[in-house]
């Protein structure tokens, strides 16, 4: 039980508990804040995997933009920010059974992979992963096309937002 494994287990438990609280808590704002905790746990996982850039980007984009967007959406649309009504439906046991079956199937598939016991390759000392990422994103024989397509995707998201918000229609 190295320190790495202990920290990984703790973070895993934090993420799972936060995710569970997101869907079971009654107050919607609390759900948004538990989501922030789960996203922060994922950022810590990235840091453990030595993907520092992704960890910081996770905090900047997910917590700094998307979680804020969720919180705004909840506050702007719900008059009563409490979930009304019972939290379980009458046939909840079918859903639970299906969920357990899917979980069992996934665990079985993952455990029977030949590579599941392999440890991650150690990054050699002189390799600058961040610069390699940058070079890969813009090299013509690497990922430049997805890089440009990503900007088109963001443009599409912007145009879609304009349309859905009703600004595109002539009033």
């Amino acid at each position, binding site marked *: 039980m190295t320190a790495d494994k202990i920290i990984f287990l703790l973070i895993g438990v934090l993420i799972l508990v936060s995710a569970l609280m997101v869907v079971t808590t009654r107050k919607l704002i609390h759900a948004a804040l538990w989501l922030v905790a789960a996203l922060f746990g994922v950022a810590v996982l990235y840091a453990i995997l030595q993907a*520092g*850039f992704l960890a*910081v980007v996770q*905090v900047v984009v997910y*917590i*700094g933009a998307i979680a*804020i967007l969720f919180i705004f959406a909840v*506050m702007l649309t719900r008059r009563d920010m409490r979930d009304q009504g019972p939290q379980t439906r009458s046939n909840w046991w079918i859903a639970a059974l299906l969920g357990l079956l899917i979980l069992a199937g996934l665990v079985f598939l993952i455990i029977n992979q030949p590579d599941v016991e392999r440890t991650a390759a150690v990054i050699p000392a002189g390799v600058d992963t961040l610069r390699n990422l940058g070079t890969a994103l813009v090299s013509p024989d690497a990922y430049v096309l997805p890089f440009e397509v990503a900007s088109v995707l963001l443009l599409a998201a912007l145009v879609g937002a304009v349309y859905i918000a009703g600004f595109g229609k002539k009033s």
Partner: protein
Amino acid sequence: MTLAGFLNDPINFVAQWLTGLLTGWGFSNGLITVILYFIGILVLVVFAMLLDIGLVWVERKVVARFQDRLGPNRIGPFGLIQPIADIIKLVIKEDITPAGADKVVFNIAPVLAAMSVISLWAILPLSSKIFGVDLNVAVLYLVAAGALGTLSIIMGGWASNNKYALLGAFRMVANMVSYEIPMVVTLLIPVILADTMSVQGITQAQSGMWFAILSPLAFVIFFISAIAELGRSPFDLVEAESELTAGFNVEYSGMKFGWFYASELLHAFTFGGFMAVLFFGGYGGFFGLEKLSAFHWLTNPFIQAAVFIAKAMFGYWAIMWVKYSMPRIRIDHMLAFNWKFLVPLSLVVLVNTAILNKLLAGLPAWGYTLGMFLSNVIIGVVTIEILRAYGRKQRKSEQTLAQAMRN
């Protein structure tokens, strides 16, 4: 184990001494690392907190001088003990939680606000040998800490169960979130010029020429966005005393309010420090002077730390100068200024820097500097001309409208 060894490389000196001591006591290597980290962190955080206390005094004295009065001068010489009196007062005040407030979120918000600012001190390069960590994504870490601060504001505003607090929090978050775009875009410019995202690398790349001279427009845009990010005047809709009575922290009293206030001051000082690092050479930037043997003492870590703190204080003073001289801006003007002016301008400056950095790469140092500086001047002049033409057009249309109404 000499005094010269300590003066030249304090952290490694102490670390080696402590490692020797602790291995002698039989601790394992991993535990020693954690203990050393803890001690280093405590020293940095205690220093930041003491600085914060000093900043309360600096803030009150400076605002007093700007307003042509004396400021606190009763308690202690020059009122130096005033912040300690303030802290004692805040600690012994009753902690009033408004009825219907969400207690957990209400209590977490000031802690999160303070944590987000304290965590910035992990990457602040006080000198080439005194710093927390040399993170290779330090520039984005700055933005991430700001994101956590934004979250704490909305938590505080919502948990107060007060519609005016919530309104203040919304406006503050819309403000901070909008001005993050020009800030991040202008943060890219030192990254391009220094070819690294680590603050140590950026500081060392400025040993020849400050980035503020290579790209003055980027510095101006970063300065404006930083003031907006901090929520200080002229962008301080939250503390608009005449409008929202302290905005999102109106229901906070006692030490919780103290933490919101203290973290805002420390955030302002840390931003002054980052401006110094990104644009004014940080702890170095002596234009190559330290390479002469007569000025070799400039590379001493303690001198570098003093230089850094002096530059950060100057940046903080400049932020205060803007705060106490300018009127507040209305929210629609503020957001229009950001989205219609600062964002396109910062993108133009970024594109200009990227292209010129490539094209002028072969020139000698003075050619490179002159080229970059002139390009910024040209962009500035063109922008001002566009603004003037726009203003003229506006005035003319208003004139014709007034004339049409008179006839």
